[in-house]
Each structure stands twice: as structure tokens, then as C-alpha cells.
């Protein structure tokens, strides 16, 4: 028997995700949007701060495909550059929030007692403040800028990572294999990292993918309220706000960035749902799983039939 090459499509995770056409479509949209904003310098027809005083507040034209704003800046170019803010805030925020949240959750779950109580009550306190308000408060303190905005949004996301990690830790803390790790002579920190942490990862990955959309949404909200990046750096939220002023004259200026936000957030949410379903052990053996299995089986049968036919000759 010759060794089979392990293909990427053998992984259940990839299979389930690729089984849904809508998810593949969303992934493509996201990748294209991401690439466009990364290579904004090459793609965008103008710079984000190129002011053209001869055409101010113009509608769509061949020169400016989506028109210009009050300073004569090309809206399409600003839209393209604006993706940089949204994507980097989205990514940076979930990374920060998940690292802090998972760490706190692990400590609270493993240590228990007073330490756990203090952590969990603090988490409760933070989550008693609605996310919009909390992030607004933190940006008011730290000031504008991408990193500050990330910190502000991350603080509102930490509680969910912390809670989910802690409850996962509590549910496996006394599992035999974890206890066995202790008996094998690992100290508590090492044991936590080796045996408990890996078991909290998949839930947290689901959370991370589900949260990117929320983080981008929060970023656009802050930007809309003027608490986001420093001008003239464009961001979709602040562009909606710019357009709001000229709503009567040039409604597209406010509408288009909003559509952009919606599409990106929607795609992230759909991908997030798919990741959740793919990693959810409860759903093993469902439709997508069965379909691909059946396809593989049929392929195998066809191959063996062909081999048998070959042998007969």
C-alpha cells in the first residue's frame, strides 16, 4: 500500500467550512477587501489626503468614481485606506482581548478562592457598563489613535474570554487526564499550560472569529463619534459622520461607507458562525460532514473498481 498524501481537505474543520458556499464567498470578499486596503498605495486612485479644491462635494464622475468630500478628497480612495484602520483595529483588539481574557480566566479557574472572586467581580463590574459607553470612556481617557482605540475596545471584550475560559477550566480541572498530569510530577503552572490551556483554545478561537466583526463595528462607532483615529487618516465610521453633515446634498457620501462596514462585518459574522459550527463537537456527523464523507467513499469505490477492472485484464 503506498502512503497517502495528507491533503488539507482531510481536516474536518476545512471540510465543514468549505462545504458552505456562502462562507466561501464571504471569505473571498474578506480576502479581497483586506488585500485592497493593504495595497492601498497601489490600488487607490488618489492618496487619502489629496485635496482637490476644484471639485468639492461632487457626485460620482469618471474622475472620482464615488465623488469627493468637502475638502475635495476622493471618497473611493479614502474608503480603500479606511480599511486599514478597521482591519488592524479588528485584529489587534481580539488578539489583546483574548490574551488578557484567557490569562485571567486560567488564573481564576485554576487558583479559585479569593483570587478568582476578585477577578470575576472585576469582570462583572466592567461588563455592567455597556460596550459603547465603556470604550467611549476609555478613549476619552487615553485620547485618540489606533492603539488607544484597540485598548478601549479590548477592555469591553475581555470579560467574555475570561468567563468562557474559566468555565471551561472548571469543567475539566478535575478530569482524569489533568489529575494524571499532576501525578506525573508537573507543577501547577506547567500542568495548567500543558493540559488545561489547550482544551480552552477551540472555544476561544470561535470567540475570536465571532468578535472581529464586533470589534470593527465598535471601531466605526467610536470613529463616528469623533473618538477614533486622528484626522486626516480616514476610517469608515468617521466618513459616515463626514457625510452626515451633507446628507441632503450628497447622501451617497454617508451611505457608501456604511454599506462597506455592513459587508465586512456581515462576512466576518458568517465566517465566525461557520468556524463555530466546524469546531463544535456536538455537530459532528451533520450534513456537511456526511456529504463530504459520502463523496470520498464514492471516490474510493470508483478507484477500487477501476483497480479491479485493471487486474482482470
Amino acid at each position: 500500500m503506498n502512503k497517502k498524501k495528507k491533503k488539507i481537505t482531510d481536516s474536518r474543520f476545512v471540510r465543514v467550512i468549505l462545504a458552505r458556499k456562502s462562507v466561501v464567498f464571504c471569505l473571498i470578499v474578506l480576502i479581497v477587501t483586506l488585500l485592497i486596503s493593504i495595497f492601498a498605495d497601489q490600488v487607490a486612485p488618489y492618496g487619502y489626503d489629496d485635496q482637490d479644491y476644484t471639485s468639492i462635494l461632487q457626485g460620482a464622475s469618471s474622475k472620482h468614481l464615488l465623488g469627493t468630500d468637502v475638502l475635495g478628497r476622493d471618497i473611493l480612495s479614502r474608503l480603500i485606506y479606511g480599511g486599514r484602520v478597521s482591519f488592524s483595529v479588528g485584529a489587534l483588539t481580539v488578539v489583546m482581548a483574548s490574551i488578557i481574557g484567557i490569562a485571567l480566566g486560567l488564573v481564576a479557574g485554576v487558583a479559585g478562592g479569593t483570587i478568582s472572586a476578585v477577578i470575576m467581580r472585576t469582570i462583572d463590574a466592567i461588563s455592567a457598563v455597556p460596550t459603547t459607553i465603556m470604550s467611549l470612556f476609555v478613549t476619552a481617557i487615553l485620547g485618540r489613535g489606533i492603539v488607544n482605540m484597540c485598548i478601549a475596545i479590548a477592555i469591553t471584550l475581555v470579560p467574555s474570554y475570561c468567563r468562557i475560559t474559566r468555565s471551561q477550566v472548571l469543567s475539566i480541572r478535575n478530569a482524569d487526564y489533568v489529575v494524571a498530569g499532576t501525578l506525573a510530577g508537573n507543577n501547577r503552572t506547567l500542568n495548567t499550560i500543558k493540559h488545561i490551556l489547550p482544551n480552552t483554545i477551540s472555544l476561544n478561537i470561535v470567540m475570536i472569529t465571532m468578535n472581529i466583526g464586533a470589534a470593527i463595528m465598535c471601531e466605526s462607532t467610536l470613529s463616528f463619534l469623533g473618538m477614533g483615529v486622528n484626522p486626516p487618516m480616514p476610517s469608515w465610521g468617521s466618513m459616515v459622520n463626514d457625510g452626515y453633515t451633507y446628507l441632503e446634498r450628497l447622501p451617497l457620501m454617508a451611505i457608501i461607507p456604511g454599506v462597506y462596514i455592513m459587508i465586512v462585518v456581515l462576512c466576518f459574522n458568517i465566517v465566525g458562525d461557520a468556524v463555530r459550527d466546524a469546531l463544535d463537537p456536538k455537530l459532528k456527523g451533520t450534513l456537511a460532514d456526511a456529504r463530504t464523507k459520502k463523496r470520498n467513499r464514492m471516490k474510493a469505490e470508483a478507484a477500487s473498481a477501476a483497480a479491479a477492472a485493471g487486474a482482470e485484464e
Partner: protein
Amino acid sequence: MSEKVLEIKNLSVEYNTEIATIFAVNGLDMDLDAGETLGLVGETGAGKTTTAKAIMRILPEKVGEITSGNIVVDGKDVYAISEAEMCNIRGKVVSMVFQDPMSALNPIMTVGDQIKEVIRIHEKKLTKEQIDKKVDEMMELVGIPANRKVEYPHEFSGGMKQRIVIAIALACEPKLILADEPTTALDVTIQAQMLALIKDLQRRLGTAMLLITHDFGVVAQICEKVAVMYAGEIIEYGPVEKIFDHENLHPYTIGLFRSIPNLKVKTARLNAIDGMMPDPSVKLHGCHFAPRCKYASERCKADQKMIETEPGHFIRCCRFDKEQGGSANE
């Protein structure tokens, strides 16, 4: 003899899922007299539960489909009447006990309310007090103090939950009760208790019962007749004594008996039946058991009839067909 409470003629059920069509029941005939107990035996996936759900008309909507045949319960064709009429039959004329008592009760309703619900639906003439009294009676009947009716399912043990499920099923004194493996999820000690309870109540109320199980021990204990089901068909049917005398049986039934440990005979290994149940997504022709049968021959490729080998004992196997030179008795 007495009247029939259940008559099934040529029943076929398919499940149409997005992946495949599953032929769950294929041309099944069955009938049951009033007060009679029939054991329906077979492996998991043979179509036993599907048959019961078809009788109750609670097959999963849009997925489960009756492709042929009809079911008559107490003189009414179940699939010829309206849903509203069917609601009057469910719980009143025929009721069902499900396999897993842990999940068969609504977790956020008190057990008393759940018993009360079925009585209120079907006994419209009773006053509130009478209904309450009936609930108490039912609880006592299955051996649970009536004062526990205000408690919720999670406050009871598995065996007690199953008692409550049985109380619900029997509350309106139905003519037929479908018990779908009522004891499988319970401890062995509780199983015996539960069987005794069911048998006792059945005798007292004169209810007919279709007992679905894969356990011959249970069948021997409380059934009068046995039907053995394989891949959507009944392949053997007869009085319990005839089946348990182990003579002249369908090869599959013989296989089933061999796979039960026998304490009297010293065996190194249990005899399993070779092979697997056929893929239910393939429509079968001929004898469904032939691929696993050591007596299989060319004749088995034809569709098999039920053959009455002795009075009341039917076997779906051509080896017993004397007209065609069956050889099993020789």
C-alpha cells in the same frame, strides 16, 4: 376472537433527508387484538421506533413519509383523518412511552401538570377537582406519593421519571400503548420493577401493548406474541411459546438467540451474526437477510412471502415454503 385495536397493512416509511433516502420500513403488516401484548424485536435501525411513530403519526415533519399502506387504530384510519381528530386519538386511544425517561419529560413543568395536561385534553367533562383527583390516583398507581406532583422532573430519579411517563401514557386508559424500549435506559434492578408495573397496569386496565425491545428476556417475561423485525420487515411472527421453543425459526431469529449468553451451556464465545445490517439507503429486493444467511441460495433473490409453518407462526423464508420444495423441516 376479540376486536382488533391495531391493523397495519403493507406499511412503508421513507425518510427523505438531504443526504439520502432511507427506507426505514418496507411493507410491514401487523395487527393486535384488544388486551394483547406483542413484542417487536430487532436490532437498532430495524425500523421498530419508526413503526411506532408512524402509528402515532408523529414522524418528523417533511422528512418522514408514508409511501404505502395504511394504519387503522381502533377502527380509524390514522392517515385519513384530520390532525385535530388525530389529537383526540393520541393519548386517549393510543399512547406512547419513549425510550429515555431522562428527556421525555418537559423540564420546566411540574410532573403533576404534565399528567394533568393529558387528562384535561381528553376528559373534557371532568371538573377541576376530579382532574386533580385523577392525577393523584395516577401517581399512586405507578407508586409515587401524590404529594410529589408539584415537583419538577429533575427532582426524580430515572426510574421514577419513567413511572411518570407511564402514568401519563395510561392516564386516559388508552386501548393501546406503544412502549418503545421502556426499560433500556434504566438499571437492571429497576427494569424488572418497571416491567412488573407495566404488566400489572396493563392487566388491570385491559390495554393492548406493542412492546418494542431488543431484549428477548423482556419479551419472554411479558409478551404473548413476538414479531421479529429485520431491515424494515417482519421476518418472523408467532406466539411467544412457539418462538422460544427454538424449533423451526428464521435463520436471523436463530442468530439472535445464539447471541444471548446462556448460563447453562458453557461457551467460550458468544455467536454473533456475521456481517452487518444492509445499508438502509438502498432499496432491497429479495430476502433482506440473504447476504448474511448461511442457507442463502438462488431462490432467496425473489421477494419473500410470509409462510405459516404452524398455526399462528409465520416465517418470511423460502426454506419453509413446501410448495417450492422448502427444505427446512427435513
